[in-house]
Structure formats: C-alpha cells, structure tokens
C-alpha cells in the first residue's frame, strides 16, 4: 500500500511542493483533486521538501489534495498496437480507442554511444526537388524547417509524411492549433498513411507540461521501433512551442534566465531530443524533421539559433517555398555523390546563379539599367522559381536534374554557368551546341 500525502505546502504555477520521504528524483506521483487525477513528476528534492510538476497544471489543485508517489519514472506503452493511434502528451488515447498499459518503456532513456553510430549513407527520397536535389534528406538526419507563422509548414510536413520513403511516421504535435491537428488526421487518413503512423498530439489548449512530454514520448517509441528494425521518420511541430513551455516552467521555478527569458540549458534540452536521431547498425533508424517557427522571422532568436547549432542543417520555408539560401542539409555530401555524377554540379551551379539573380533583382529594384548578363539572370531566376522551387513540383531526383540542365541551357552559354567542363560535355542538352561560346570568341 502506497503512502498518501494529503498536505500540499505550496502551489506556484504548475509546481506543487509536499513534505515526503523516500522519494526519488524524476519519479512520478498521482495527484487527485476535485477536478480529477493528474500525473506529476518530481523535479527537485531538498531534504524532505519535494517539488512536483503537475502535468495538467496547478489550476484548481488545493492544498488538501492527495498525492501518491508511484515509484517509477514516466513510462509509455510500446507495441505494434500503437500504429494508427492518436495519443495526448501523457500517452492517453485521444482517439476513441482503448488505453494501452502493456509493455511499458521508460522515456528519456540514455543517449546512444557515439562509438556505435555509423556514417549516414541512405538518402530519403521525398519527391520535392528543393529537398532531393539541393538539400537531400538523409536517413538518421535531424533537420528543422525554419519558418514563420502563417507559412504552410504543416502542409509541407504532411506532404513529407505521405511521400517519404520510410517504414513508419511518428508525428509529435506541440501546441498545435486544433484545426491543424484535424488537418493532419484528415490528410493521413485520406492518403491511407494512417496505418503506418502514430500521433502524439498536444494542442494549444492542453496543459503546458504535457507539451514537454510529447517529443520524449514520441522519440522513446521511435527508438524502440528503430531497434526492432524499422526506418522511422519523426515529425515534430512546433519545437518553438516546446521551448516556450520550457521557458514558462523555468521561470516559474525561478531559474536565472539567460537569453530572452529562456533557460540557460535550452541548448542541452533541445539537443537531448534531436540527438535521438540515429541509424542503428543492423537495425532501423530514426530521422527527425521538426518545425521551428521563428518569432518575427528572426533566425537569431534563441530557439532557431540553438536549434541550428544542434541540427544537421535546416530548411527555410518562406513565401511557400524552400529557400535555397540558408537552407542546408549538412549530410547531403554523404549521399549525393552516389546519385548521379552531375548532382553536385547542378546543385552548386544553380544556386550560385540564383544568388546572382537575386543581386540583379536588387539592382533592378533600384532602377539600374539591366546589362545583357542581368537579363539572362532574370530569365533564369524566374524559370528556377516556377519549375524547381514551387512546392507543388513533385518529381523524382533524376527528372529534377534533367530539368535543371534544361533551364541552364535555356538561359546561358555553357561557360557562363561555372560548371565543370566534363559535366557540360556530358549533360548539356543536345541540340544546343556546347562549343558555341568558344567559336564566337
């Protein structure tokens, strides 16, 4: 019989304090109040003073409510029965299905020994040229989508969820608008992808502590599936809400804030989640694609900033397009040498020219006369945007590379592209003389 404590000494925000003995750090307790039951987690021990974070929040908790310590840290059920199901941040069903209690696993497990990691080697094809050609997504990679509110980042995630070549998808929603939650559910159900998907969703109106649990639960489950040989893609949206929950709790706990109110360990907190991305040798893998909305489109804001240092690149989603500047998949070099020999050349060459186009655009907007070169660039930029960058373009990598050559040949002489001569000789579309430029000189 577990001991019941019925005197809560202080309640501040989501944190309550009780006097209790033989309590372990990080373990759970059940708080029973007139509004129902809630789990709580031990977050500080000071002598017999035990501070607990109540998952459903401190609102309505009374000093006379009962607290029972459960003697174990937070756990979640793991089995194939999870597939196709929807849960909330505490692991309770959000759909009408039964609650799952069997095969409990601990969340926030230890990190993977770096010596057991392997060099990522498999590309994940998405059918989106801005990803496949320019910033290839690689198995076991962790990548955020940097965006601002109002951009179609959830649509992009849903598209990746539908198209990505993986075994299963785990979606962790944090602070999702209820509409967005319904949108994901609808798209996945209609697309027939629900059976390979698990959703852990915290909506904006749910208690803030549960928001913190979403990535941990999602990743703990993903880790088990990966160990069982599954290639798992974890989609997390939106990590800024997660960070804001961290901030909220740190401030209530009276921690010294470091930057714009965020706790000093924001980096470590984010890293311990993102670093769960891994490729287990001889088993499966976890790939993480997250969304980080940048308040005020400011990449130096602590959340995108710290994220950028942790993740292996980032995608910028602006004006409904994945921007080639700034967007980077740090691991692409590991896989794009084995796709097609012109992959890297096209990737670098087209982006450099697009950068030049942007400069010409700037000059144009300031009313300068456009030189012949500028004219060429303007033409190129427009073509690039409409037939490569547009998010509706859905073609496999090889077709996208061919399209790249077409665009280049349409706009430039071979030597103007800055591409290596041997590539030009091999891939420059026939019918457009590669040596024309030399002869005229």
């Amino acid at each position, binding site marked *: 019989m577990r001991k019941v404590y019925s005197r809560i000494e202080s309640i501040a925000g989501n944190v309550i304090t009780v006097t209790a003995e033989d309590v372990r750090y990080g373990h759970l307790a059940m708080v029973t109040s007139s509004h129902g039951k809630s789990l709580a987690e031990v977050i500080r021990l000071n002598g017999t003073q035990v501070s607990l974070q109540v998952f459903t929040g401190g609102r309505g908790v009374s000093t006379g409510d009962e607290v029972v310590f459960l003697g174990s840290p937070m756990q979640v059920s793991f089995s194939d029965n999870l597939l196709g199901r929807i849960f909330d941040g505490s692991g309770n069903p959000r759909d009408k299905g039964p609650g799952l209690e069997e095969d409990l696993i601990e969340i926030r497990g230890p*990190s993977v020994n770096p*010596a057991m990691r392997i*060099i990522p080697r498999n590309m994940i094809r998405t059918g989106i040229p801005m990803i496949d050609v320019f910033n290839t997504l690689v198995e076991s990679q962790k990548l955020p989508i940097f965006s601002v509110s109002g951009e179609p980042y959830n649509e992009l995630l849903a598209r990746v969820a539908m198209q990505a070549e993986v075994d299963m998808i785990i979606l962790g929603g944090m602070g999702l608008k209820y509409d967005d939650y319904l949108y994901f559910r609808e798209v996945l159900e209609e697309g027939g992808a629900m059976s390979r998907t698990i959703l852990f969703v915290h909506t904006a109106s749910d208690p803030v502590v549960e928001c913190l649990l979403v990535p941990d639960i999602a990743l703990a489950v993903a880790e088990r599936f990966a160990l069982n040989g599954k290639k798992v893609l974890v989609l997390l949206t939106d990590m800024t809400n997660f960070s804001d929950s961290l901030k909220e709790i740190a401030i209530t706990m009276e921690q*010294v804030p470091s930057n714009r109110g965020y706790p000093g360990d924001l980096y470590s907190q984010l890293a311990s989640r993102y670093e769960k991305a891994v490729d287990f040798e001889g088993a499966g893998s976890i790939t993480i694609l997250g969304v980080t909305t940048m308040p005020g489109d400011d990449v130096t804001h602590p959340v995108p900033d710290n994220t950028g240092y942790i993740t*292996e690149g980032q995608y910028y989603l602006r004006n409904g397009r994945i921007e080639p500047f700034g967007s980077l998949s740090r691991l692409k070099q590991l896989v794009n040498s084995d796709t097609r020999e012109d992959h890297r050349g096209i990737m670098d060459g087209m982006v450099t020219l697009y950068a030049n186009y942007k400069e010409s655009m700037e000059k144009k907007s300031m009313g300068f006369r456009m030189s012949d070169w500028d004219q060429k660039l303007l033409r190129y930029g427009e073509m690039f945007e409409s037939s490569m960058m547009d998010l509706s373009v859905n073609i496999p990598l090889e077709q996208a590379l061919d399209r790249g050559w077409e665009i280049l040949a349409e706009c430039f002489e071979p030597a103007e592209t800055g591409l290596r001569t041997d590539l030009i000789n091999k891939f420059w579309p026939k019918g457009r003389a590669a040596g024309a430029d030399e002869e005229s000189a």
Partner: protein
Amino acid sequence: MSQSRGTVIGVNGNMVSVEVEGEVALNEVGYIDTYSGDERRRLKSEVIRIRGSRAEVQVFEMTTGLGVGDHVEFTGELLAVELGPGLLAKVYDGLQNPLPELAAQCGFFLDRGVYIEALDRETRWRFTPKVSPGDQVERAHTLGVVPEGIFEHRVMVPFNRYGTYTVKEVASEGEYVVTDRIALLEDSSGTEVPVTMMFEWPVKRPIDVYAERLKPVDPMMTKVRIIDTFFPVALGGTYCIPGPFGAGKTVLQQITSRNADVDIVIVAACGERAGEVVETLREFPELIDPRTGRTLMERTVIICNTSSMPVAAREASVYTAVTIAEYYRQMGLNVLLLADSTSRWAQAMREMSGRLEEIPGEEAFPAYLESVIAAFYERAGVVTLRDGGRGSVTIGGTVSPAGGNFEEPVTQATLKVVGAFHGLSRERSDARRYPSIHPLESWSKYTGSIDRGMVEYAREVLHHGDEVGQMMKVVGEEGTSLDDYVWYLKSEFADAVYLQQNAFDPVDAAVSVERQKYTFGILFDLLTARLNFGQKEEARTWFARLRQRFLDLNGAEWQSDGFKELVADIGKAVGSVRAGVEDNAVSIVGEMR
C-alpha cells in the same frame, strides 16, 4: 587526503547537495550509490562548492532515481586522467572512458555508472630503459621508452613526484603492461617510490614541467589556402573560429584534423553533434597519413562528449583533452588540440552556475567566464623541455556565438587571448564560398610562409574590390569606371580561385605549401598586372573564362601534364591583355625581382 563519506540531502537536476562527514576538497571526485532498477550504480561526481559540512557536487550522469539519504563516497582524489602508453587512437568520453569498450559492454546506449579504465591493462609494451641505477632524476625525466605506433613514447617520472630521486632499480628491456613496476626510485630521505608506465594527473592543473616557454613562430600548415596564406597559425599558438551555425566550423576543423602538419591531433568534440564525431571516428582508421604511411587514427585521440551526453562531463572534456595534449608535448612532439565547440563548454559552466544560484554576469554566463577561457588557451605554447627538446601544444577552438553575433561574451573573451581569428561569415557560406572565413575581418598575429608584402597586396585588392562592389550596389555597373570594375573582377577572381577551396575535390582539398606558393605567385602576377580591356563586358567574359581555367588548375594533380598545360594557358591568357604593372604594385613587383 582522507576518504570521507556523505549523504544526499537534495537533488536539483545534475546538481546534488551532500551532507559530508569529514574533510572534502574542491574538485574532489565522489561516487553516489544508487539503484537503477535493481542494479546498483555508482555515479561519478565532482565537488563544486563547499559550505560548512554541505557540499554541492555535479553529477556526470543523469540523476533520475537519486533520492535523499543515498550514500556518497569521496575518493580523496581530484578529477584526473590516466597518462601512459596507449592513449593514441583511442576514443574517450569527457571523463576518459573508452567508448568502444563501453559499447562492447553495454551495447547501443551509454548506461549510467559504468566506468572503464582508460588505459588498457592487458596490452604489453616493449620497454627500453634509458636510465641506469644511480642516476639522478626529476619529474618528467625519461626513464625509458616504448614504441607507440609511429612514436617513441617516453615513460617518464610521474609529474607529481616533486624533488630529486635516485634510480635504484630499472626494468630491463622487455615487454610489460602499464601497471608493471618499471623502476624503483628513492628520494633524499630514503623513501622508495615504485614507478609504473602510467600515472594520473588532475585535469584542471596545467602540466608545468618544462625548461622555458617560447614565442610561437614556426607556422603550422593546415593545407587550407586562406589560412596558410592569409591568416596563418603558429605551432604552439592559439586560434579561434567563431561562426554562426551552418557556416562550416566543424568541416573546417575536420579538414584541419586531417591535414595539419603536426605529430598528434587531439579532437575534443565538446557538446556538439554526435554525427560529426562519427565521421572522424569511422574515416580516420581508413585514411592514410601521407607523411607517415600509417592511418590517421594512429596519431589521433578523440575526446567525445556530444550534446546529448551529460552536461557536467562536457565541462570536464576540454580539460581531459588539453591534459593529454600537454602529456604528449612532454615527449617533444607537436600536438594540435581542436576543441569544438568552446561555447558548449561555456554553456555547461553557465548551467552549473545557474544551479549554484551564483550572481549571473552577461547573458547569465558566470562572472569568471573570461578568466576560465583565458586559462584554458594559455595551456597552449611551445616549450623547451629539460632535455633540450622542444614540444608544442596548439589550440584551435570553435566558438558558436548566439545568433552569429560576435559581440557575445564567449567570443569576446576568446578573442582577447588568441593569436589568430578566423571569423566565419554567414554571407559567404550562404553564397557557398567555402571555407567561409571572412577575408577582411579575420586576422592573425603569426607569420606565415608566404611573403607578407605579397599577401598584404592581395588583401588590399580584396578590400578595394569589396569597396567597389559596395559602391556598385548603389551606383550600378554603368556608374562604375572600367578601372574600378577591373579591380572588382580581380578581387572576385582571387576569392573564387584562391580563397575558396573545394573540400570535396581530392586534389583541391589539401594544398601543400609548395603548391600554395606557386599558385599564389600566378595569382599575384595577375593581380599586379595592368590589364587592357575595351569595355566591361569584355573584361567580365575574360575573367569568367580564366576563372574556369584556374579552377581546373586547382583540380589538377601537382606538376602533372594537365597542370603544366593549364599554367601555360593561363600565362598566355594573361599575356594577351597585359599592359604593364598596376601603379600601386610597381614597388612591390620591383622588390620581387
């Protein structure tokens, strides 16, 4: 020091308060007894504050499951590393636990409370004595040598044996394990001291056994053109690489760790991505070092405390790394320590400082941040050893400034104490100009191997070109004189073919000094030449075509037929438009001749 015991009285994240019975020292190591499931675990921790009988310790592991009343055993020892043969080619965590051995024992994950001896106790080393009974020795005196890979590893009198000793016995030539006694020393009072091939040294104390510290002058070649030519680093010097994320800090460090012209490289992956370490870890055993003909791994030690590993051990990891570096310096070797990233280390300090409820300084970093950073970089240097040999520790640290803004505390504190600054720029990395070291903002106080005057001239061209570029944004191309436009093209050209380097091209990835001197000569010739163009369009096309040739040249094998052909080609092309020497280059070109 005595060994005290204590009891846990509070837990706050990875900081645990302990009621101590007996004496306890700052930075002393203690083990907290706890249970993980049913298994007993001893978690390593370090004392970071003492108030009366209450000590605050930082735990190097996750603290979930700790409770009030848990027992703590203090060891009486400071946090230390094991030094001896067998460090090279090892992969350690921040506390010097060998990670592959941990993996063999625990599998995929890092279990709590599992510690493994840093030096293998089974390996037998072939020992050759270098002293005879009766010899007088001091600490760090070489007692004998064992071969470790390509190096002659010196077995020395432990650095913590102060005073003078007489050698009483020394082991004869033969094979021994690190724990075997290889010598017996006797101090002036007649006390006998047995010596093995290994000893411990506390990581937070610099190893100070040398005759003299010298000024770093000899350049350390990294085979990165922009560094060696423009912002050189000296052996025994310090440099830092601050840069926003994605600007290529880690790639630059990796390239340096491969190509740097030093004997030993210590890679400290401190709070960064695990994936990046893995690349080093998996590739180095395969890559052959052209200088030695052996794998790169044989000259490398990796200290790896990645971002998801416990924060307290992250703080220790840079000290572990620098202590190992200093140890090999004592053998007369040139050691390069690459720390990636010192910001994560500073953040680890910040986290702890916050938990200790210290009064925060700027951006909540502790007030002692600057002195701690300075003390770390000061552990670099060239020294003459007592036997007249010379060794060096060079430290290169990356900095990850919040928001890419160099005005933040860690970058500023670092800039005060380093000899070279390789500032990475977001603009350049966005434009795919790698390595993205900013050619105008970076600096170095060291002397490189290419003539200063020529380099200065090239920098002036870059500077002038940049000014013209800025101006052109305002007045447009038509508002720019042909003369200025050519300067602009020259600087863009120099940037494209010399400052930028293709790390993925087998030839261009590492450029020898010889080749740098040669190609810089060609570039210099072009920069100083007055070029005759009728109009801008003509100049632009000419430069575009020449750039192509030069890039092909960069990809051509040194002194191959293709290389020579391209050189001749470029010479001809420049000759066809040359019209004398630029006015501002007359004196320097004259000097050259």
